[in-house]
């Protein structure tokens, strides 16, 4: 590191805008949302200040004090105190505080000051403070705190210019370090009250709009009804908006496949491109619009500040099944992917609650399962309307998501019953102000989700599709063979071997085979099925959906949907469980119970559906 590089740490209470400020300063695109606990690791970025000096910025997880209770808070404390392995203490600390809630945030500012390092206070969300007629005497605040104070609006372009000028200028003088112990911290609240009395005028403690909305959103009955309606509408929209776009992309790829095949000479390469790439990958990419519609709503809810309210509403329910309201946000993240959800459990302080959340997070329906659901629902569930407004396909999708949630609650309940520690832990959570979601932030979020999906598609899914095509094509059938060529391929033999295990669930050999690549990436099950049916010559002109309805019963389709709702997660998820819990035993427990639940639920579904049919 060059001598002119200044190491700066961004710290503050959760949800005060540290990561938004980090993105402003470094041009980064780290995830931001309107609730506490989004950042659970230290993140690093650089930018060159107007003076030409390189500034290295560390974004640290939010914490309310140095009494670290959870693993993410511990990271912040260790970095600031210079105890983090392989990392020196920062040269300058930027303490970020929410200007609309200084009553809560100033205490941590005073704690940071006692470290005896140069500190700058960034009064963030000044626009919101002005809207609420909160007046802050900044020069007086600066004098009383004994540190430079600058106003920022981290979510607005150019909202951090004053801060950049300040950190690029003269280094602030550090206060004398104070030996930290509980007794020396006793008077911090009194100091905060004195400072606020001298510098801040607030017409109201909370925003009037928040109070009005919360009267409904947090109502024990209406609040739950609103939450149910919101989630229901999201899943309806996934089908109503996403399906036409998905069909258009599918048709487009079919058309391209036909034209490219006509141009290529006949042979194995033509089969690979037509059956593998256009047939397999083309089917998966068609589900991008539905994934983006789902994420549009998740991002909008994250930005709005509604999600912590949902956590608050569900706390009692979650506590009764051995989880906590704090589990809600990690579980919600798991709808994108179980991996950030499992990592998000670092904000849960209690080890039992954290482990329970880690074990149930994979039951939340991740976005990788959406293509499988969309394919099977599109193929087997008619596009009927229920009560004139709800479409049946959307209802089935909602039911599958609900099955994952109910499954998680059931598993949580069982964990609570068998765990020795049956105590209940109260939820303490800060409810942020409501905020109108910003179009730019949602657009960036969607772009990133789309990019992640496409990167997976052109990486591991493409690779698995090529392998699936190869094992479905080779070895060639022996001389005099009478059955379809694919029956003599490696895929044919493997699939028929696996069918012994999965036949009671109604899975044919093609479905059984597709479960193997799904272990690396869920969406690959769709690509694998498309490739196997295309190579086998069963896909015809109607695409994969047509091939499935021709070769598959409704009972088998329902059984497969249920399998994917509960089935053991992908390899990456198991690896993260190992990493976060430091235990192979927990990986084995997670894999085994999910396999058992998925097998039993699919078996029941298939046998009941067959009887009813």
């Amino acid at each position: 590191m060059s001598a002119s590089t200044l190491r700066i740490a961004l710290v503050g209470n959760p949800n005060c805008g540290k990561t938004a400020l980090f993105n402003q300063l470094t041009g980064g695109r780290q995830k931001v949302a309107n609730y506490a606990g989004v950042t659970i690791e230290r993140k690093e970025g650089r930018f060159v200040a107007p003076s030409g000096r390189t500034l290295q910025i560390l974004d640290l997880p939010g914490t309310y004090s140095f009494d670290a209770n959870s693993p993410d808070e511990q990271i912040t404390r260790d970095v600031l105190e210079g105890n983090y392995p392989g990392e020196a203490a920062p040269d300058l600390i930027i303490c970020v505080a929410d200007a609309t809630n200084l009553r809560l945030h100033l205490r941590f500012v005073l704690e940071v000051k006692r470290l005896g390092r140069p500190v700058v206070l960034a009064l963030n969300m000044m626009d919101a403070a002005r809207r609420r007629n909160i007046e802050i005497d900044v020069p007086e605040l600066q004098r009383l705190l004994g540190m430079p104070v600058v106003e920022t609006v981290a979510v607005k372009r150019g909202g951090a210019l004053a801060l950049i000028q300040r950190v690029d200028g003269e280094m602030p003088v550090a206060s004398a370090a104070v030996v930290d112990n509980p007794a020396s911290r006793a008077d911090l609240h009194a100091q905060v009250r004195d400072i606020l009395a001298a510098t801040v005028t607030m017409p109201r403690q909370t925003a009037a709009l928040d109070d009005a909305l919360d009267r409904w959103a947090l109502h024990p009955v209406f609040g739950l009804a609103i939450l149910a309606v919101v989630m229901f509408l999201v899943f309806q929209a996934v089908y109503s908006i996403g399906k036409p776009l998905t069909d258009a992309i599918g048709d487009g790829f079919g058309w391209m496949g036909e034209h490219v095949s006509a141009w290529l000479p006949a042979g194995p390469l033509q089969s690979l491109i037509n059956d593998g790439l256009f047939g397999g990958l083309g089917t998966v990419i068609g589900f991008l619009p539905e994934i983006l519609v789902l994420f549009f709503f998740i991002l909008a809810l994250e930005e709005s500040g509604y999600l912590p309210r949902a956590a608050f509403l569900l706390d009692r329910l979650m506590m009764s099944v051995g989880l906590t309201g704090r589990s809600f946000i990690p579980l919600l993240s798991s709808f994108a992917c179980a991996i950030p959800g499992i990592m998000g459990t670092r904000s849960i302080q209690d080890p039992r609650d954290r482990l329970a959340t880690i074990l149930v997070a994979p039951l939340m329906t991740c976005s990788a399962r959406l293509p499988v659901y969309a394919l099977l629902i599109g193929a087997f569930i008619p596009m009927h309307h229920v009560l004139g407004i709800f479409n049946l396909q959307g209802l089935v999708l909602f039911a599958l998501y609900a099955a994952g949630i109910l499954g998680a609650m059931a598993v949580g309940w069982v964990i609570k019953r068998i765990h020795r520690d049956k105590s209940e832990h109260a939820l303490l959570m800060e409810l942020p102000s409501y905020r109108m979601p910003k179009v730019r932030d949602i657009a960036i979020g969607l772009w990133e989700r789309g990019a992640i999906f496409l990167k997976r598609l052109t990486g591991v899914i493409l690779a698995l599709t090529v392998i699936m095509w190869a094992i479905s094509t080779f070895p060639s059938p022996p001389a005099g063979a009478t059955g379809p060529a694919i029956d003599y391929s490696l895929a044919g033999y493997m699939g028929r071997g696996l069918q012994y295990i999965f036949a009671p669930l109604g899975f044919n050999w093609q479905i059984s085979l597709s479960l193997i690549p799904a272990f690396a990436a869920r969406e690959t099950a769709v690509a694998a099925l498309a490739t196997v049916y295309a190579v086998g010559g069963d896909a015809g002109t109607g695409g994969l959906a047509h091939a499935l309805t021709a070769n598959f019963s409704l009972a088998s389709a329902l059984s497969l949907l249920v399998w994917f709702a509960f089935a053991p997660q992908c390899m990456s998820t198991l690896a993260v469980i190992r990493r976060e819990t430091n235990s192979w035993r927990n990986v084995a427990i997670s894999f085994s119970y999910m396999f058992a639940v998925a097998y039993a639920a699919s078996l029941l579904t298939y046998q009941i559906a067959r009887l009813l049919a």
Partner: protein
Amino acid sequence: MTMGLLVQYVVIGLLVLVSVLVVFRKLAPKLTNRWLAVASIRLSRPEQASWLRVVGRRLQPKQATGNCSDGCDTCGACGPKPPATATKMMPLEFRARVK
């Protein structure tokens, strides 16, 4: 076998080989990186042909820099491990407000 067909099989063979490597790297990133590092060191030796040294440099595994909190595709390169020891519980103390 015609020349055209032979070329097709060679192309397919290479594609399958690369695909197996990509999948193996996804499923066993540490092991793959170790193998790639060994191969990279061997190929980068000064006595090797220049084109082999270029291949060797290309095979050098990238350093892990990302983190997993922003999506599931970044998880080949996660950030630091969380502290292994459980943190001690801090009881809540409620105090009457001083007026």
